């Protein structure tokens, strides 16, 4: 053993762990020979894309593998105990008491039919932390207070659906840490939350575990987040560890080509690096950096893509493609409780304009009204008041043929790759639908156009007879982009179009979008919650909060000198702050 020189024993030592899933075709391996060591009090992050085996590894430790999952080999030593040899009964002793667990999605991880207090109290009782009704209740209140719920005593009787996502995650963290475990497994604990909430909760988690002295095994897909929150980093790819070591070292000097790809494609890291680089260079211009991707990161490198984008952009001022003025949308909502009908102002006097051939990002957290604005511009919702001008033409009175013409010039790409394509229509029909609807050309020319579009989004022509369920998320988004481009529009509204994709695929799609913009002189309205992505793709940024635009400026200005407190918060929430990175 290499650490025989130190007297401290590792808290968790995984050796050659193999996990497989039983299917009708035999055992499919998910984790293939993972070695991992975690010292007491340390934080270690496992980073990887979906399907890399990172969550499976974490679940295997406390035997929470789903039905067909089995540990097929290797050993897991935890605090001097061989966990793989433990019966279910003995694992119950370990779980909760010695190893805490914080799951990913706060919305689905609390039982909706029991009160929050009940769910905290049953944990306390099961782990023997306290007994007797009063003591248990007192302890539950203390647990929740520690987790950051100030009015815990009042909220004990409430049900999960009466809590916000962030609050629920605090409850889950409280439950996970309630018995002061030696190890906490946190499986993407904040990826379902808004960025600012995410940051606050991770800060809190860090403080708590440091105070208790709990070691943390942190699972995440975000390399920047991992590096910021953990001393040690493990990168997983296809069930194996490809690179492991101290976080900073890996980030600054990634050796394995897969890690290099991840570093190049992570928006959080790219935006940080662009930021520090433009600060360093006298002209503040990204194009001066002369940054070049390496062979393995070709086509995935966000900085290179951003550079290229800026280079290809004409420098002359051009007319506005979209001008939005005082756009307001008020929804009538059914009253809460007392039966009184209320109103919700989803968009409150929003004004901005987008210059032809440029990209404007509309950034905000959930409920900020950014998608409502997009839908109104697309004429999918009618505004309560205000005006939208497309190429100098007021769109409100358009009907029939004129509206059809407008739709031809402006097309959307939506977020959910699994919902954006009709599962019962093949790819050829899906991409061809705009051509049919607008009666462009005859059958032969339409087919030729569909093939041309497939080529444009870098998909093989054979896909024309295939169905969406055979495609990956990224491929579906490519099809959605092809459909949007079919009518040769001037404007494309991208509503969280890359948010649901894995980082590498996301980087590819961002590159594709940038290439298409240069080639077809497209104007993009880019709706997103992720400021980091904005840094590499947008020229201008409008930050939205509660239906209002709180700050609007060029991307450089927003990043260099944010005026509003909220913008600063959003910027701070981009993971990877305080990590010095080479360009």
């Amino acid at each position, binding site marked *: 053993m290499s650490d025989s020189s130190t007297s401290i024993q590792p808290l968790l030592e995984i050796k050659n762990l193999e996990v497989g899933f039983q299917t009708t075709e035999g055992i499919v391996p998910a984790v293939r020979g993972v070695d*991992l060591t975690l010292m007491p009090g340390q934080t270690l992050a496992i980073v990887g894309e979906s399907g890399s085996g990172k969550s499976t590894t974490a679940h295997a430790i406390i035997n929470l593998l789903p039905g067909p999952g089995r540990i097929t080999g290797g050993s897991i030593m935890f605090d001097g105990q061989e966990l793989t040899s433990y019966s279910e009964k003995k694992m119950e002793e370990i779980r909760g008491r010695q190893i805490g667990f914080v799951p990913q999605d706060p919305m689905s991880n609390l039982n909706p039919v029991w009160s929050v207090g009940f769910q905290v109290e049953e944990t306390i009782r099961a782990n023997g932390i306290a007994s007797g009704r009063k003591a248990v209740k007192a302890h539950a209140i203390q647990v929740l207070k520690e987790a950051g719920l100030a009015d815990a005593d009042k909220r004990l009787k409430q049900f999960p659906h009466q809590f916000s996502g962030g609050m629920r995650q605090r409850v889950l963290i409280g439950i996970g840490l309630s018995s002061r475990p030696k190890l906490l497994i946190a499986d993407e604990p904040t990826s379902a939350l808004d960025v600012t909430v995410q940051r606050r909760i991770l800060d809190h988690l860090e403080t708590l575990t440091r105070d208790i002295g709990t070691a943390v095994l942190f699972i995440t897909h975000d390399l920047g987040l991992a590096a910021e929150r953990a001393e*040690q980093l493990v990168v997983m790819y296809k069930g194996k560890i490809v690179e*492991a070591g101290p976080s900073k070292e890996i980030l600054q000097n990634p050796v*394995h080509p897969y890690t290099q790809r991840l570093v190049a494609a992570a928006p959080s890291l790219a935006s940080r690096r662009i930021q520090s680089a433009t600060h360093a260079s006298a002209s503040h211009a990204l194009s001066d950096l002369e940054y070049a991707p390496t062979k393995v990161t070709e086509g995935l490198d966000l900085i290179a893509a951003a550079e290229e984008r800026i280079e290809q952009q004409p420098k002359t001022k051009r007319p506005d493609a979209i001008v939005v003025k005082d756009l307001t949308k008020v929804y009538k909502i059914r009253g809460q409780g007392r039966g009184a009908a209320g109103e919700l102002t989803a968009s409150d006097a929003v004004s901005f304009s987008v210059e032809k051939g440029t990209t404007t990002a509309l950034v905000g957290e959930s409920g900020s009204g950014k998608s409502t604005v997009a839908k109104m511009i697309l004429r999918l919702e009618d505004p309560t008041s205000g005006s939208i001008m497309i190429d100098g033409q007021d769109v409100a009175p358009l009907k029939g043929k004129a509206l059809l013409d407008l739709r031809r010039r402006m097309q959307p790409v939506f977020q959910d790759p699994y919902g954006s394509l009709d599962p019962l229509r093949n790819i050829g029909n899906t991409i061809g639908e705009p051509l049919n609807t607008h009666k462009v050309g005859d059958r032969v020319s339409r087919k030729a156009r569909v093939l041309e579009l497939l080529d444009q989004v870098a998909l093989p022509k054979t*896909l024309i007879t295939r169905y969406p369920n055979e495609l990956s998320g990224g491929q579906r988004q490519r099809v959605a982009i092809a459909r949007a481009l079919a*009518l040769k529009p001037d404007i494309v509204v991208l509503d969280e179009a890359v948010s649901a994709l894995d980082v590498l695929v996301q980087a590819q799609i961002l590159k594709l979008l940038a290439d298409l913009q240069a080639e077809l002189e497209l104007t993009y309205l880019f709706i997103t919650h992720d400021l980091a992505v904005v840094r590499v793709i947008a020229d201008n940024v409008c930050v939205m909060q509660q239906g209002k635009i709180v700050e609007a400026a060029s991307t450089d200005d927003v990043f260099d000198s944010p005026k509003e407190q909220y913008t600063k918060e959003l910027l701070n929430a981009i993971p990877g702050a305080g990590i010095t990175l080479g360009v």
Partner: protein
Amino acid sequence: MSNNPPTQTHYVAPLEETPLVAIDTVNVGERPSNLWIDAWRDMRRRPMFWISSVIILLVVLVALFPNLFTSVPPNDNCVLSNSNGAPTAEHILGFTKQGCDVFSRIIHGTSTSLSVGIIVTVLTTVLGILFGMFAGYYGGWLDSVLSRAGDIFFSIPYILAAVVIMSVFSAYRNVFVISLAIGIFAWPATARVLRAEIMRVKNSDYVMASQALGVSRFRILLRHVLPNSIAPVIVVTTISLGAAIVAEATLSFLGVGLPNTTMSWGNDISAAQSDLRTAPQTLIYPSLALSITVLSFIMLGEVVRDALDPKARAQR
């Protein structure tokens, strides 16, 4: 594997162990597949699908060409001296109280049961699709009106409603009237299933994408929303065919179904009930025919449900 625990030092796996593969490559070798193609591939592997299909096919053949299956006329040649008689070589299932051939009556009664099943199912499916489709897709006041109407029809158990209707129309008891009487109160189940499914599907991004293309609302309903919502209706339809056959038999059993002169399984069971002790075969064989037919439809419905609903597939 290295001897060093990889987290202590900067560990890099040799590239040969996990060679990089191209990101997001398309698997071009596969055959095209969508929900329906997948469902068919799933179904044809299951013996239950083939068993139920073969039985249903047989029942349909019997209903269409009863004389292929028996040469004994069902009602002529009934001799009272054969009343409740035991099976003979020529009359394999014995005789009814009236001295008629049990087997022949079962064969000739098939078309009645099947016709009622089919007419009721067509009626409930058409009504259910119309109500469910418009209520779910257009929402608002139309939904309120249609759904409340559905609630009212749903609140009267359909067999009880049919009992009342058949009592009123006692002079007009035939296959069509009884099918109407059952179907007119049985459609809300279909409508509810379709409405819920349509409300889910209509919020899909692909519906919004078509809207943004300028496809008309009604066309979106027909081209995208309805095809994607119809799967659960098919399941309900298959199962309700069986239920309708049971309903007809129940009404005939209660004496408000088809007149005694019409040959039907329900009537034969009803007529045989008093002879349960002395001649159980007169009751058991028509019951068996009825149950096997219904079981086939319900089994087929189960197979279709499993094949169409990925959630149900996971539950197997």
